[in-house]
């Protein structure tokens, strides 16, 4: 099997240029590529278009890149919980394209699967549909949405092997598998990197063909946004 392993995040993101279009996995702070984000913050890559369901919080996740004004545009479904984001958006420093969450997921899935456009009912009759083609199928109205493809996709998995196969854990899966397939170059960071052949071939979520670089990340913080517990 083809070996996709690189040393670390710094090496993995070294060739991401200014003004690149990135996809970043995660829902809220769950399943985000923490190591790659840190490396991009250190590298100060600027003018980025980031496709990510959320924009992190002020001091974590994509918020760290916003602090340094590395992001030119966000394509997201929900961008609350972030004061600096709000400031940049209102001042016009940051451009935002809001898209329904399911449409975002499907557009990314379409990008990886070679489907340039598809019809969805989400947003019909709302401002999301403005300027888009609408059409009736079986008595219901739909609008046409286009695929999304990124120069680089940065994904975070639980386990991965040297061939790039990935397994996600819990709800940290979210947008990661579709993004892995929709990146021209996909960089996967994993909590545990194992030799090819150790993962159950029947239980792999992302086939290695989609992953160009993989490394074992370090120091995962996995910050929790809403720690909710019940008493025993």
């Amino acid at each position, binding site marked *: 099997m083809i070996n996709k392993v690189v040393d670390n995040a710094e090496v993995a993101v070294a060739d991401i240029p200014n003004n690149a279009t990135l996809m970043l996995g995660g829902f*809220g*702070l769950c399943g985000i590529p923490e190591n790659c984000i840190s490396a991009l913050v250190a590298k100060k890559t600027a003018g980025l278009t980031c496709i990510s369901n959320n924009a992190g919080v002020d001091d974590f996740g994509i918020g760290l890149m916003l602090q340094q004004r590395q992001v030119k545009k966000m394509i997201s479904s929900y961008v609350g919980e972030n004061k600096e984001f709000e400031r940049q958006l209102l001042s016009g420093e940051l451009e935002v394209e809001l898209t329904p969450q399911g449409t975002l*997921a499907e557009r990314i899935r379409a990008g990886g699967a070679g489907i340039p456009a598809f019809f969805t009912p989400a947003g019909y009759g709302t*401002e999301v549909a403005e300027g888009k083609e609408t059409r009736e199928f079986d008595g219901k109205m739909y609008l046409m949405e286009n695929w999304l493809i990124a120069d680089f996709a940065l994904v975070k998995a639980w386990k991965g092997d040297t061939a790039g196969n990935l397994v996600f854990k*819990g709800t940290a*899966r979210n947008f990661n598998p579709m993004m892995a397939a929709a990146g021209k170059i996909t960089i996967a960071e994993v909590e545990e990197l194992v030799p090819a052949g150790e993962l159950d071939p029947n239980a792999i979520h992302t086939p290695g063909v989609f992953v160009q670089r993989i490394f074992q990340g370090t120091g995962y913080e996995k910050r*929790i946004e809403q720690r909710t517990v019940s008493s025993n």
Partner: protein
Amino acid sequence: MALDKNGIAQRIAKELKDGYYVNLGIGIPTLVANYIPEGMDVVLQSENGLLGIGPFPTEENVDADLINAGKQTISMVDGSVLFSSADSFGMIRGGHIDLTILGAMEVSENGDIANWKIPGKMVKGMGGAMDLVASAKNIIVAMRHVDKYGKSKLLPECSLPLTGVNCVKKIVTELGVFEVVPEGGFKVLERAPGVSLEEIKNSTAGKLIVEEEIPEMAF
């Protein structure tokens, strides 16, 4: 007496049926989970990739990799299953979820809903709400009858940017239960305990349909 938010949730829980798969929005809808009748099999979907939401975890079982769509730490139950966001919204868009319960800023008498944006204020985004309301077979809105300025949220037409059109089937507020009828209008089904029809009329800007004696809701 008008219901509190737990009362609204408790009344909505009566709409659940055995075998339902249900998506609960953030806020009052989340509270519905506390009132699922004993012995009734209802499976809760979290659109970030889980079917089978369990109770909040105990302190020692908190897992940062297991959250709901409100970003709260949660647990799973026997038979839970995890999937990607694309698969999750495929499930939603494909009509596989029996009931969606969500909050709203405004509902119009033809079932339009506005719940994601207030022009001139910070826009947080629609999240999964547009997908949910465009796809669900059955949508119940849980909300206050009037906003904090005393303005009715049951309107002839929504004034805020829409989330979806012709989709809301039922509304439960602190004052009562309302059906959005196909020909347009809010049909009063039940009054909250001690709430008069007069009070409901005074708080409703949209067309109210009162067909017969309106019962008080029972729990």
